[in-house]
């Protein structure tokens, strides 16, 4: 079937089988390889993108269900030139190790630091990141970075 999506502000139209996971369409069809299929089970968050501004696991999202919707990937949330506040804080807190989880982590962190849905405290940030698994860092520096962005936003 023909699918029409807005991806990072651009309207894209392409053919895909309706049950194809959104993550495969983004990577194989549109060559946006930020989102990664790691578990394909909804547990790890490495495939996370925003659908109409809501963090979504792209591995469990059949592309036909997001027809006509607005998709933002890590490529759209960030730019090649200057780091976003979330990226800058991650770098400053030396939070990134292997990087496997980070495209999803940046999507989740961008949402949680800008949507007003997360209280600026450690417990709330950890709760909001339950679906973003990181095998390397132990999370504490990621939480520090998130809180730094939220505090800067309140100044």
């Amino acid at each position: 079937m023909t699918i029409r999506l807005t991806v990072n502000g651009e309207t894209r139209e392409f053919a895909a089988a309706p049950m194809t996971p959104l993550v495969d369409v983004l990577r194989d069809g549109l060559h946006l390889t930020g989102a990664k299929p790691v578990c394909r089970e909804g547990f790890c968050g490495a495939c996370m993108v925003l659908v109409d501004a809501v963090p979504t696991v792209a591995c469990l999202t059949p592309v036909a269900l997001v027809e006509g919707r607005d998709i933002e990937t890590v490529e759209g949330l960030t730019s090649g030139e200057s780091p976003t506040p979330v990226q800058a804080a991650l770098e400053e807190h030396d939070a990134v190790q292997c990087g496997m989880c980070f495209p999803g982590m940046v999507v989740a962190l961008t949402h949680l630091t800008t949507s007003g849905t997360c209280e600026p405290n450690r417990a709330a940030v950890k709760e909001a990141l339950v679906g973003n698994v990181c095998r390397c860092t132990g999370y504490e520096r990621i939480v520090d970075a998130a809180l730094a962005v939220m505090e800067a936003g309140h100044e």
Partner: protein
Amino acid sequence: MRPETPPEILLPATLGEALASLGERAAAPLAGGTWVMRAPLRREPFAPAYVGLSRIPELSLVEVTDDAIAIGAAVTHADLANALAGFPEFAGLRLAAGSSANPAVRSAATVGGNLCTADFAAADLVPALLCLDATVELAGPAGSRLIPLADFLAQRTGLLPGHILTKVVVARTGQRTAHARLPLRKAGDYPVAIVSVAMRVDAMERIGAARIAVGSVEATARRWTGLEDALLGEPLDGARTTGIAGSLLASFNGRDGVEAPGWYRVRVLPALAGRAVASLVAA
């Protein structure tokens, strides 16, 4: 395990069209897709076609009146948790909807998908709704009918083909409710065991009537009537409840699973019952 012809997804705008499509194509409903999309991992085939429920407006409504709350089957866990924010009497159901899985899954997975997946023992909403004595509405070619949730759970594999669960109705009776779940990580994975309670408490803070449901321990959630009876007239006391519950475990036959053996699921029930009752004290 990709099928030869990948399944089609139809997206009807009305319930009538959806039911007609289910009949014509041996199709299955598709709600959030968080269970269906993992079929390949379970080595299960997809259905020949799916009927998406996301464009049928009435399925995504939560309606609250003085007497009851009606939850559309396509309401997501996240939307349900938000909708229940102003209703302390539904604290248990709200916690079930707002703390299962993880935030991204909660914003996709639906109430109907949680209740209709017979092979999923760890569903949080099932015991939370069972202790509220919920009723489900099932629509089919011959019309709609209301079925008590307990009966639906016992018969759902036979009842569901060609049908759509349209809503869940819960009476508002002002009782106190709680939901105690035990995932092995702090959050994010399936609960090993769940105890959901709904209780009426008298002026002396004693238990006047209790409904208690247990999830994830056996293949299908069910009421713990032995404990319900034993707690009548007891004070709202977590430690005391745990003690009483400890001698009432003989009827449970825990299921073995990768995350926990069956005996463990049963062994944690008294502590979960105690936690649930203790959280009613503060309520």
